[in-house]
């Protein structure tokens, strides 16, 4: 309000605001740091998360250099432990968990449901600040010398034995956790109360469904982690025995509470990715999403049943064998809806008019890698296999297939798909396709060898290892170089496109979502006239496919009402 004086857009002669949309609405630092516009907050998040992604990336680059040789020769054992811990903490809580919801969810959720903003814009800004404060604690930990507990903070190592900055790291996670809870509440309320007229629940795009279900998971799971960390900190700081066996406590209890959050956290990471892919594939296949209803049910099922399976992280922990049986069974059950989603994406291609722009390539990559990740999840759900594979590189490979192959691929799919909406510019297609393919191969190159060495017995979190595993580590490190290049490329060409990219029309993909009905980039108030909705989502129709010059293609006339069901 008070910064209107500084705000050059309030001057009537500034013509550039007309087509710069929300980006033109103030250029001062203050206009960004105090903004309540969900789109600008999304940009703030994107920048923050990019920084953390690269800090986490540097950490793991050092780890991969160390692992080229079997001996501990590049960094010391303590430094190595701090590096992989930092990588884990940053990547999980400061990239993967907030990645798609806080950036694309923030940017797109109101646009997709035809709202002016999220329900609580100031809370939204506050959640960004919480993430930044949490991030500041992480940076403090980094500068002060690091933390060496692994991202899992297992007691009693974390609560008693570690000599590193455990409390600061736990506070970082705690604070950032409340940032995501705030975002989750905001998304839930927005989806419930701010949908455009006519936009019934079963007309919502799946991305919105994904944001909604993931928000429910966030608000119900994250507080349990917060309490687990609080108790761990209480034990470390005040010496009250809670997980300490010397006072009669049980260290396994921490694991239960931790995984009650951290297994659903995997779904916090992957559900938004599923939402993205469910938008991209129908658009580039020009085809209504196959089995929309089932896709919705699958999302809901995953988000609920995802809470029942945490014990499969603890098959060798000393958990009761009968609990192992229960958790193993439930883990197989939760794989069913994931499989349904994969089949539905595939079936969406049937009778489509498929083109292969970069977002579609990333989405294909996602389906392939997620399928691999999901199927290896079945290995880990079956007890005898898990006993051998857990805490080895098999697990590392498995969850990187899901989180990096899955979530990060989808993140890049989303980045390219909505880049024109966010910035008003097109990215360079050739470069982007190249990066997408490179990422796919670099990823498999890096992580596939880890399945083999994991099954052969290579434990995780080892800075030195028996020489028979060296070949796999060398392969993996070489692949990581390719992967790093594939991550750096978009940073280059997307930045380039901000200035020199082709100006995009409002709807370059001819997509059907409401977000494409406003200008690119959208005005601060999102829609000049709030839309009403009369159709089911993904109203693509391959028969009526026409190409219209600049805005690559549109689907206009055909939408006369090809309702099928």
């Amino acid at each position: 309000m008070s910064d209107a004086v500084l705000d050059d857009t309030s001057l009537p002669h500034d013509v550039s605001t007309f087509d710069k949309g929300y980006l033109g609405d103030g250029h001062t630092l203050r206009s960004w740091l105090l903004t309540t516009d969900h789109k600008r907050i999304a940009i703030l998040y994107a920048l923050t998360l990019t920084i953390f992604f690269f800090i986490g990336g540097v950490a793991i680059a050092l780890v991969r250099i160390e692992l080229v040789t079997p001996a501990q020769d590049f960094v010391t054992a303590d430094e190595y432990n701090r590096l992989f811990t930092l990588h884990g903490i940053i990547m999980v809580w400061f990239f993967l968990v907030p990645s798609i919801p806080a950036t694309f969810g923030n940017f797109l959720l109101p646009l997709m449901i035809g709202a002016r903003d999220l329900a609580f814009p100031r809370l939204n800004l506050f959640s960004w600040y919480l993430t930044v404060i949490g991030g500041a604690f992480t940076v403090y930990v980094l500068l002060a010398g690091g933390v060496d507990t692994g991202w899992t903070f297992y007691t009693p190592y974390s609560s008693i034995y570690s000599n590193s900055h455990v409390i600061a790291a736990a506070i970082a996670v705690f604070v950032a956790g409340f940032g995501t809870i705030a975002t989750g509440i905001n998304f839930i309320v927005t989806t419930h109360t701010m949908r455009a007229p006519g936009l019934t629940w079963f007309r919502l795009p799946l991305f919105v469904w994904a944001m909604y279900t993931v928000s429910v998971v966030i608000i119900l799971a994250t507080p349990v982690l917060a309490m687990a960390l609080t108790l761990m900190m209480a034990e470390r700081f005040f010496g009250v025995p809670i997980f300490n066996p010397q006072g009669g406590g049980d260290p396994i209890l921490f694991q239960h509470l931790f995984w009650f959050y951290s297994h659903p956290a995997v779904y916090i990471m992957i559900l938004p990715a599923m939402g993205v892919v469910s938008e991209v594939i129908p658009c580039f296949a020009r085809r209504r999403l196959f089995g929309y209803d089932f896709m919705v049910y699958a999302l809901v099922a995953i988000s609920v049943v995802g809470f029942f399976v945490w014990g499969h992280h603890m098959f060798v922990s000393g958990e009761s064998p009968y609990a192992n049986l229960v958790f193993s069974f439930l883990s197989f059950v939760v794989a069913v809806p994931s499989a349904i989603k994969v089949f539905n994406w595939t079936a969406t291609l049937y009778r489509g008019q498929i083109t292969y722009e970069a977002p579609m390539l990333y989405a294909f990559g996602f389906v392939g890698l997620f399928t691999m990740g999901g199927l290896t999840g079945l290995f880990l759900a079956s007890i005898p296999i898990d006993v051998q594979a857990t805490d080895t590189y098999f697990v590392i490979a498995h969850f990187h297939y899901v989180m990096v192959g899955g979530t990060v691929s989808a993140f890049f799919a989303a980045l390219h798909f909505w880049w024109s909406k966010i910035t008003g510019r097109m990215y360079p297609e050739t470069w982007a396709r190249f990066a997408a393919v490179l990422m796919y191969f670099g990823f498999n190159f890096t992580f596939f060898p880890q399945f083999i060495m994991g099954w052969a017995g290579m434990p995780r979190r080892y800075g030195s290892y028996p020489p028979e595993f060296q070949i796999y580590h060398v392969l993996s490190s070489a692949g990581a170089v390719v992967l790093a290049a594939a991550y750096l490329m978009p940073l280059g060409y997307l930045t380039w496109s901000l200035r020199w990219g082709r100006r995009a029309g409002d709807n370059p993909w001819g997509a059907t979502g409401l977000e494409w009905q406003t200008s690119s980039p959208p005005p601060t108030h999102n829609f000049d006239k709030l839309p009403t909705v009369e159709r089911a989502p993904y109203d693509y129709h391959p028969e009526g496919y026409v190409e219209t010059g600049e805005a690559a293609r549109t689907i206009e006339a055909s939408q006369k009402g090809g309702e099928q069901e």
Partner: protein
Amino acid sequence: MSAAGRRRHDDMPTVREIVRRPAWVLLVLLVALGLNIGAAFLPIAPFLKTAFHLIVAAGTVALIAFIFMEMEKKGPTIRLFAAAGFIWIAILFLLIFSDYGIRR
């Protein structure tokens, strides 16, 4: 009962009308508290006492939620979210005791 839409001055309840129901509920809650404390001193098996305490506590929680927090007047969505909190605690307890309940 609930004042939907625009409110006119002549609809305004008296303080007495507003206070009556919560006051009765408070009385019940205080009596329940007294019962609970009293029951703690009865010479019966500990688990029976604990069960009684928990039942009384559940009643207290329900009264606070439904009357004081006006859950009685809320739509299904809000009830669903309130219920979700309790259901998820039940999930946590149920599955955590699938370990602790049969460990030894």
